Structure formats: structure tokens, C-alpha cells
């Protein structure tokens, strides 16, 4: 096993439960690369919800909380408020985060609380066998949209930006280095950092969503179907913007606001 894995992966928990060709392994490595790059292994903990991507941190040699479907952010906020001196990395998925977890996502973003959220978007509910999710493209054939999905997909990045997230980025599993960089930047950023990763689920989403069961072909689609976002630059027709979509260094983080208010009130912390 390579040095990074020796340091961060619990050998006794392997093999992972991910399917062959799953993108979660790439996200898993990107995240620990970022933690290693920042040198904060002792000062970071992970919180996840329920779904395939929520399993990513369960293999780490870190403190990990594998919580309830849709509720990772609520747990993470409690943990962060108890230990504001530490960093919290949240792993979630398109279903976990945008469906059942939508309310907590909205409010955590609105608070601009210092958390880093990695939302693995495979456009499907993979763990339960391939039902549509809020991000599933219109027309996709899934286990709960057998005639083709009739819903306009929800864009997590737009949602959190509208509510006040101060660091928002999107990459894909076809951009592993850039992904690791964005995760590091997001962790370092003091505020609500949201990183969407478009990832492949060849087994459950391959055929019905991408028209492709081959994970390499899906990765190729991600590479070719995205363009690097730059403010002011014209959007590429029919392609998804990737890169840093927002990095507001001036937004005041939640805990900072609480502390400022208490100081203003002359409240001495006991």
C-alpha cells in the first residue's frame, strides 16, 4: 500500500464496499491528499450521512461519525460548535444532501458556518439500487422513473450560493488533482465550503443516466462535458462549469459572528 494509504486507511476494514468502477475511491484519495497537504490529520474529523459516498470516511484513521440519512450537517454543526478550534469534513451525496438533507443544507449554508462539505453527485440513489435523486437529469430511466424522469434537476451549487455559502467549487472524478486542491482550499477557508464532485456510478446510474455502463466512458463524458469556470468568461454551451464558482473571503463566518456579538454585549465567557 502506498504511504498515503498506510497513514490514512484502516487496512483491517478493507476491502471497501464500493463497486468496481465506482468514483468514490478517487474522492477518498483526494480528501486524504488534501488533509495530508494541509498537515491537519490531528485537527480534523469527518461526518457523513447515509449512502455510498457516506462510507468514504469510514475507512479513514480519523475520528468519524457515520450518522443518519440527510442529517450529517446537523451532526457536524453540533460537533463544530463543541470544538470550534477543529476542522470538520462532511461527506454526503446528491440524495442525502439535496433531498432529505435539503433543509439542513440550506441553513448551514445560510449560517456560513465553518464546515467543508463534499457532495458526491452520482445522479442516483446508488446504495438502494438505482432510484432517481433530486439531481437526476430529466429523462433518465431509473428504478423510480421507469418512463423517464419528469423533474428538472436541482443544482446544489446554485442553491448554496443563493443562500450564502462562501466557498463553492465543482469538480469531477475525472479531475482528481484539481479536486484535491479544491478540498484543501475549502477546508482552509473559514466559512461554509461546498464542493460538488460529479462521480460515476456505473452499476446503478450507468445505463439509465449516462447511457454508458463503462466507468471510463463516463469519466470521459465528465471530462468532455465540463469547462473551466472563470468569472466574466462566457459559459460553454451545453457544458457544466467546473472549478471554483465562488470564493468570498470577506463573508463573516457563523462562529465569528456569535463571538463578535457576545463581545459586543460584554458577555464574559464563564
Amino acid at each position: 500500500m502506498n504511504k498515503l494509504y498506510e497513514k490514512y486507511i484502516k487496512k483491517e476494514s478493507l476491502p471497501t464496499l464500493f463497486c468496481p468502477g465506482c468514483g468514490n475511491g478517487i474522492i477518498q484519495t483526494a480528501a486524504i491528499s488534501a488533509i495530508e497537504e494541509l498537515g491537519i490529520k490531528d485537527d480534523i474529523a469527518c461526518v457523513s450521512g447515509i449512502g455510498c459516498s457516506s462510507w468514504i470516511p469510514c475507512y479513514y484513521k480519523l475520528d468519524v461519525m457515520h450518522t443518519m440519512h440527510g442529517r450529517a450537517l446537523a451532526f457536524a454543526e453540533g460537533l463544530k460548535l463543541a470544538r470550534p478550534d477543529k476542522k470538520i469534513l462532511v461527506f454526503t451525496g446528491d440524495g442525502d444532501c439535496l433531498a432529505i438533507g435539503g433543509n439542513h443544507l440550506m441553513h448551514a449554508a445560510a449560517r456560513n458556518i465553518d464546515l467543508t462539505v463534499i457532495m458526491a453527485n452520482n445522479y442516483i440513489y446508488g446504495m438502494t439500487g438505482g432510484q432517481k435523486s433530486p439531481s437526476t437529469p430529466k429523462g433518465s430511466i431509473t428504478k423510480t422513473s421507469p418512463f423517464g424522469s419528469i423533474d428538472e434537476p436541482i443544482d446544489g451549487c446554485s442553491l448554496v450560493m443563493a443562500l450564502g455559502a462562501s466557498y463553492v467549487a465543482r469538480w469531477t472524478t475525472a479531475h482528481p488533482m484539481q479536486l484535491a486542491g479544491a478540498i484543501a482550499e475549502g477546508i482552509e477557508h473559514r466559512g461554509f465550503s461546498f464542493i460538488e464532485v460529479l462521480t460515476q456510478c456505473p452499476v446503478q446510474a450507468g445505463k439509465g443516466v449516462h447511457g454508458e455502463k463503462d466507468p471510463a466512458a463516463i469519466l470521459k463524458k465528465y471530462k468532455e462535458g465540463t469547462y473551466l469556470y472563470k468569472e466574466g468568461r462566457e459559459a460553454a454551451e451545453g457544458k457544466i462549469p467546473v472549478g471554483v464558482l465562488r470564493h468570498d473571503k470577506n463573508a463573516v463566518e457563523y462562529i465569528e459572528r456569535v463571538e463578535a456579538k457576545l463581545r459586543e454585549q460584554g458577555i464574559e465567557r464563564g
Partner: protein
Amino acid sequence: MEKRTSESAKTPNKEAVLQGNEACARGALYAGCRFFAGYPITPSTEIIELMSSEMQKCGGAFIQMEDEIGSACAIIGARWGGKKAMTATSGPGYTLMQEAIGFAAVTETPIVIVNVQRGGPSTGQPTMSSQQDIYQARYGSHGDYEIIVLCPSSVQEMYDFTVRAFELSEQFRTPVILLADEVIGHMREKVVLRDGSKNIKSVKQKYVVSPQADFFQGENTLVEGQLHDSMGRRIGHMAAKSGEFINNINRKIKDHVDVIADIRTYFMDDADVAIVAYGSVVRPAIDAVKLARKVEDDRIKPKLKVFKDLLRKGVQETINTDYSHLKVGLIKINTVWPFPEEILKEATKDVHTVIVPEMNVGKYCREVERVLRNKKVIPMSKCGGDIHTPHEILDEILKEVGVDE
């Protein structure tokens, strides 16, 4: 039969007249609670309001979450961050918290949840009291788990039982429910408060199935909702190990009822009839005992005046009934769950009739019936929000026991 609750701290006490909800919040702060997440809901709202200033003043963290689910989850997260944590709610919010309660039970996370009961079901009666959630407090989440539930009957107990709730939650690494009701939550009484903060330690090994350190202790703790071994690794796919885990989690509490149970008895030494009561219904129950036993109590006299006023509104005339032949006693259940089976059997061994007044359809009475098969057990359900009166309780006993005994 008397059992002590938390031992007295050697710190100076002070007296105040407080509302029940306020006493609960102050008890939590005294117990060392340093994280509160909550959502407003009648009749518990005073707790979150007080915490929004007091929690932060004592160096803790406060957050009003977007819903009760978030509140219950946040307190679990905070506890793994090393801070004792509490939330407070009522019926509809308590229902929302059930998944998190099961999660806390299976992950052995010490948390305290206050349910100031109101009339249900659904939106029900937001400003009226009830005891309808007593089964939900025990069985609300899916799956097999045990839980500790305390029922305060006074403002002092709102304070003391909140402190005990934190002690028990840490001792047994379990969620503990403080099951209050609107009457106790909103009434105002004199309380003896303690200064400073109690040092409640967490017990790592004795009662714990999967001992794990708080986060950031260098232990690589894995908090896992699936059934797991002592390292947090899942075992759900292994039937025998899973069965063992379930049994251990349950036995952890069930086998220690003797340590957990807090039952008080009044006038039971020569009693033929026992009233079994918990929560706010203890108040009229104890007055009923005092009436029957002709105990001089200044506080009862003003109440007789209230009854006389009620009589003018057409309440049945019972004021002059002679209850003096009734040898009635009270068994006050402070810890309603785990069910104190052996203590109840012992306490009632010389009585022939047991009456269970409750502000619900007669739920706890079913447990009493189950355990006291050779006694006459009479349910005394009162739904709608009005609390039983001492005379109603005594009249019900008279009906069962007869006028001349």
C-alpha cells in the same frame, strides 16, 4: 423504600421562585451542560429562550436549529465533541426526534432530551397538559433498545431530575428523557438552587457496550449507526454477533433497574389501596392521600375553596364525603422507565387494590396490570387536559373499595 436522587453538592444553595421550565434549564447548566440546540414549541419554549442567553454566558454554545430533527442530531454531534448536550421540545417535535434517539441509543451517546408534554395527537392541544407520550418515550424509535425516562412532579424536581438525567446519561452512556408536562413546566414554585457546576464524569467501561473516546483524543473513534463491535466496525451482516449486540445494549439498562429506579412511597406502611402516579398527577394524588388520612396541610385548605367555587358551576358534590376509613397510600414513580417491576411488587405486596390515575387513555396502567396480576388494578384515565382532582381520585377509590371497609 426511600431512595435518594443525586447527592447534595457541598456548594452554597440559594432559593428562588421559578417556573418549571426555567428550573430545568438551570438544572442543566448546574449539571455541566454546555451545549443546547433547540427549536421553539409550546409549552417548552421557555427552556430554549433561557438557554439562548444563559448558555452562552457560561461559556457554552447555543444554536436555534431549523427543526427538531436538526436539534436532536446537533446535540449528539456536540457530545462527541466533548460537551454535555440537551434539547427541549414537546409532542410534535419529540416525534421528529425519534430517529436520533435510536441513533444515540445504539451509538451509546449520552444526551438529555426534555419533552414537556402537551395534548396530542398531532397538533393536538398546544397549551394543555397531558401524559400521552409515556409509551413513546420508551418505544418511540424503531428497533430494540432501552432508555431511561424521568418524570418530575414539582419545580424542584424539574431542577433535580435534570441534573440526575445528566448523571444517568453519562453513567449508562444512553439518551435520557426528562418527561415533564405543561403543568409542571409552567407552574411556579420555590426551588433550592446550587451554585457553580457539578462535575459529572463519563463512565467509559462499566456500563458501556462499545467504549469509545470523545473525538480529538487521538483514538480514531468511529460513531456508527449500524450495529457494530467495540471498534465501531459494523457487524450487521452477522446474525449471532448482532443478536448479542442488541441483547447487550438492552441489558445494559434493564439489568440495572436497582441503580436507576427512584420510587417514593407515602403512607404505604398500612395501606390497603395504593395510588400509583407520576408527573403532575402526583400533586392531586398526594393531596388525596392527605385528605383521606386527615393530614393537616395548609395548602389543601385553599384548594377546598376552589372546589366550592367549582360546585357552583355544577361539579358533583363530593366535598363532604368521608374518606377517613380509606387506608390509601401513594407510590410516586420518578423513573417511569425502565419499569420498576420488583420495586412495585414489593411496595404493593400488602395492598389489594391499585389505582393508576393518568392524563392519557391508561397507558402506564397496562404496565402495572402486567406486573401485579394478583391485585385489582384500576385505570383512571382523564383526557382533555384537565388534571385529576384529589376528590375525583378518592371517589374512584370509594367506588371500587365500597363505602364501609
